């Protein structure tokens, strides 16, 4: 039986993945099922959301790439049979969680593309 800490971590991870997945499906479905003319208008009005979504997606991918590279490097450079460095593992875990948070934020922004803008952009055409 796993200890409560491990169970809590697993539940946390599962919840995070679930949120990101639900947001991804919601984003796709809300954008796909919209009237094309209204969507085009909303995408224009919500362009800041589009930028934020793309930025969050890019950050998620950058962090994920770094996490994978560091993970590979730590595995390859570790002497055979020696235990994994707990500090590196914690940093990788935080990086992994951060990348999924950014991914969820990205999907949330894409979902918001199909919604009416909360406020109009004062800087016209920028």
């Amino acid at each position, binding site marked *: 039986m796993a200890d409560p800490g491990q169970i809590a971590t697993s539940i946390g991870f599962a919840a995070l993945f679930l949120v990101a997945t639900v947001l991804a499906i919601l984003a796709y479905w809300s954008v796909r099922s919209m*009237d094309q003319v*209204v969507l085009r208008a909303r995408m224009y009005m919500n362009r800041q959301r589009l930028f934020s979504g793309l930025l969050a997606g890019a950050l998620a991918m950058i962090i994920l790439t770094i996490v994978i590279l560091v993970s590979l490097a730590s595995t390859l450079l570790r002497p055979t049979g020696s235990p994994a460095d707990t500090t590196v593992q914690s940093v990788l875990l935080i990086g992994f969680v951060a990348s999924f948070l950014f991914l969820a934020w990205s999907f949330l922004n894409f979902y918001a593309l199909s919604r009416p803008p*909360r406020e109009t952009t004062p800087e016209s055409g920028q």
Partner: protein
Amino acid sequence: MMTTESMKIESVFDRIFDRAMRSQPQIQDILLGSDQGLVVAFKSTVKGKEARLAALAPVLADAGETLFGEVGLSPLGEILLLGNDGTMYLARLKSAPVFLLIAAKGQVNVGLLRMLASEIEAEASDVLRTLLR
């Protein structure tokens, strides 16, 4: 209570739009749309396009404002779109963050259209002011 109030407001807008459409029969659509691209009030000879018009009104206004800004003529007052088959008028109300869009088919007197628009704007402003108070 809320429904009765909104129904009353709708009927007031309906009456305003109806009067304008009767005085200028070429007018096909009159729409009041919010800054967020949502329908506030609408009257048309053809139903089912109000969401599209309301969504596009702020986009057109924004594009017009940008275009005006590029040549140093900001702020933009109103937009007139003229075609072989009709005319479209768009303006932002001074009293509320709401756009007024009027579309007329066929040959239409632009001066008259603008006068009608200012009449609708004045009446709609009063209604919106009451509503938002």
